[in-house]
């Protein structure tokens, strides 16, 4: 029984505790019962967790996320006031380097948070994202958005995956 199998039940238990907002024996035991029941009732597919968490980088990533969210909200709000109905947009193709479900999902998440981009379509087989950029008035601006998605992928990889040289063995 490795940690992999414990991630989901532990997360469910944490969720339950947060919902109750307190830790007492009744809540804890009730939570355990609910987790077991949920796990029995709904067979969830095992998540492909072949990634290594790096807590410090992850915290850095969340801080980055917060700043990104603020600046992206500002940019879209400004676009709403400045351009309104005539806002220029672009649909870009962004090829990904990684082939892991978790990393692609995280990249999609960070892309949705980063200023002016939203993932329209995920082509899992070809490992390509299609990103809608707004505002994107020129091709150069669209290229900049494309680069920022790539950067989001690299940041995710650096937080979730251990660099080969640091790996044990």
């Amino acid at each position, binding site marked *: 029984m490795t940690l992999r199998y414990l991630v989901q039940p532990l997360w469910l238990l944490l*969720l339950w*505790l*947060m*919902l109750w*907002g*307190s830790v007492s024996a009744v809540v804890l035991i009730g939570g355990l019962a609910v987790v077991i029941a949920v796990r029995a009732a709904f067979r969830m597919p095992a998540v492909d967790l072949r990634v290594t968490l790096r807590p410090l980088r992850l915290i850095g990533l969340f801080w980055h996320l917060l700043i990104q*969210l*603020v600046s*992206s*909200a500002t*940019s*879209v*709000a400004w*676009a*709403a*006031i400045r351009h*309104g*109905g*005539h*806002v*220029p*947009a*672009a*649909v*870009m*193709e*962004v*090829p990904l380097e990684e082939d892991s479900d978790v990393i692609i999902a995280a990249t*999609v*998440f960070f*892309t*949705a*948070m980063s*200023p*002016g981009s*939203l*993932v*329209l*379509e*995920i082509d899992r087989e070809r490992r*390509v994202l*299609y990103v*809608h950029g*707004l505002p*994107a*008035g*020129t*091709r150069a*601006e*669209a290229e900049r958005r494309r680069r920022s998605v790539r950067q989001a992928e690299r940041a995710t990889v650096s937080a979730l995956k251990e660099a080969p040289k640091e790996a044990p063995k």
Partner: protein
Amino acid sequence: MTALTNVVSSVLMLVGALFCLLAGVGVLRFPDAICRLHAAAKAQTLGVVLILLGTELQVSVKFAWALLLVAVFQLITVPVTGQVVGRTAYRTGEIYRPGLVMDELADRLAADARRESGEPAEPREDAQERGNG
């Protein structure tokens, strides 16, 4: 409840409400569903998260965790809604083409359609190679 937490939570709430308001402007003014989705996904999400954080400072610890959960849910559902609605909008043609500077998904879909109908693939390929480099 000290004066400082009151000030901080007031600022959070007012800024949050301002972003909600601007999101409403965006939803009303943007030309197509996908652009409106941008307003919903970014400005609206930041607005509600800020208001929730402001509320967080005003309630007892017992309820603070559940409020935090609401904020987390708001955040993690954004890309999912964005992708599902965005994809459907694009595929049903709900996109304002005159506003587009470039559209590489259309190129790709056209190339796929050509390949399926057996015609040889052509010039588009080099454009995609450039994208990969």
